[in-house]
């Protein structure tokens, strides 16, 4: 597959860069001064319990939420002020966000292809249908599909514009193991083929261990760990990421009780 052109003076800016990022809702800091930079082609998992700040961080990377302080930049653009310069180079998938139920799969993909400015959208939809095993579903209403089929459609929508940065919020939630494995494999091969950068928020530790080359763990809006999954497991002396997560979560609740 052809890789996207990058014509910029000097070194290309990183796919995503966050500096002293902070978001306060009323008097609660959902994200509290986090900093990280993602390198091109990496798969990074944002981990943390409920309310740790994962979704808020992803929302600020998409420009849907404006930071209280600090910056979230994507391909060098400040997402609070100039997100429309780069939105065509990124995409997003989450089981908690749908596409219109009454529209058929083909109609939904056509609408999004037009929004992203995909030139030959019919060919792109045909290619997606082939790649994601959607050919037989194209003329069925999205609302009548199973959870697994909907995930495949969401994935097709997320890959239509061949994004260089892909943000995923629990991409395999509520999927059976076979479909979940298929989705992970597809995402991994997409990132490899296109040198795309992937940010993943997930509660599935096995998934993170398999896919991510870096884990950023959040707690109360702060980064408490930022390293490859294997290093994190070794540092905590545990057997797997699930145990690390539980150890951190329990330590946090003990701190609260004290």
């Amino acid at each position, binding site marked *: 597959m052809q890789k996207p052109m990058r014509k910029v003076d000097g070194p290309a800016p990183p796919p995503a860069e966050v500096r002293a990022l902070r978001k306060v809702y009323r008097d609660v800091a959902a994200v509290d001064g986090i900093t990280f930079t993602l390198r091109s082609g990496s798969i990074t998992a944002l981990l943390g319990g409920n309310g740790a700040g994962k979704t808020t961080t992803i929302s600020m990377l998409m420009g849907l939420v*404006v930071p209280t302080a600090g*910056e979230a930049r994507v391909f060098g653009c400040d997402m609070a002020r100039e997100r429309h310069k780069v939105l065509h180079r990124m995409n997003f998938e*989450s089981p908690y966000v749908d596409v*219109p139920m009454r529209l058929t799969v083909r109609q939904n993909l056509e*609408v999004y292809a037009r929004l992203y400015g*995909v030139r*030959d959208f019919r060919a792109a939809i045909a290619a997606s249908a082939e790649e994601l095993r959607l050919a037989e579903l194209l003329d069925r209403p999205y609302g009548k599909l199973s959870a697994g089929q909907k995930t495949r459609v969401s994935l097709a929508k997320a890959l239509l514009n061949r994004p260089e940065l892909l943000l995923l919020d629990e991409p395999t939630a509520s999927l059976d193991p076979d479909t979940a494995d298929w989705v992970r494999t597809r995402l991994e091969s997409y990132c490899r083929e296109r040198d795309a950068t992937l940010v993943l928020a997930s509660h599935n530790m096995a998934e993170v261990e398999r896919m991510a080359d870096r884990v950023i763990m959040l707690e109360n809006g702060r980064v408490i760990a930022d390293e490859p999954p294997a290093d994190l497991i070794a540092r905590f002396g545990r057997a797997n990421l699930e145990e690390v997560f539980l150890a951190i979560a329990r330590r946090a609740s003990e701190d609260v009780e004290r």
Partner: protein
Amino acid sequence: MPSQVPAPAPPYLRAQTTIPASAARIWGMVLRYWYVIRSSWPRTAELIYWPLVQMLMWGFLQSYLARTTSLAGKAAGLFIGAVLLWDILVRSQLGFAVAFLEEIWSRNLGHLMMSPLRPSELVAALMAVSLIKLLVAMIPVALLAYLFFGFNVLSLGFAFAAFFANLIFMSWSLGLISTGVVLRWGLGAESFAWLIVFVFLPVCCVYYPVAALPVWLQPLALALPPTYVFEGLRAIVGSGTFRSDLMLRAFALNIVYFALGFAAFRYLLESARVNGSLVQMGE
């Protein structure tokens, strides 16, 4: 961190800032709403239902009054004309607001806001779809008004075009404000989008002249563009005079209202980004 020049769009995507790219995004959204209208005959029937009921009720009342009083006899078509024009305002505003609400009901707003679709393009698409819905609703009703009561809305000629343009502009201004409120406060404010237009019903003098209002309320009525449309209708039905001065005043006010509506929409959208309501859309 200094701002950096972003890379151009890759070859398989259109250049994003051109007019054709913008037009393609607007067309994409119009198609999205058209597919919804086309997919459900009950929705199409619903578009026609209330305008039809209103037209029949006021039409029969008009016929009755025409037989019993000289005033209504002189003003044949006044009520039917007023109800048709009022429905233009209502249906167009609801067409705009409901199209936007569909995005929240279908949990699609996050995807849209994350796409390259710009706020002005979303507004342009909502305006276009409100026009489409209005035509779907009003063409059959106008035809039935002619068949049942002999009232031909097109016989108003250029005046009808002026009435139509002024009412639809006002409906878009109200649509902008109501969708902005829903963006900012979520589905808890949905009823605002449904009801906002009806606040204007008593003050816009749909069925009676401005002089019928209390003196203290008349300045408010005269600050609203639809008031001039309904005054204009009474002038043309009553004396056959087209009051272009009223239409120009309505048009001037509409420019102000539309600018205010768009500014309010942008402000409330930005406010939603600050408050995080775009990612917590719900009740």
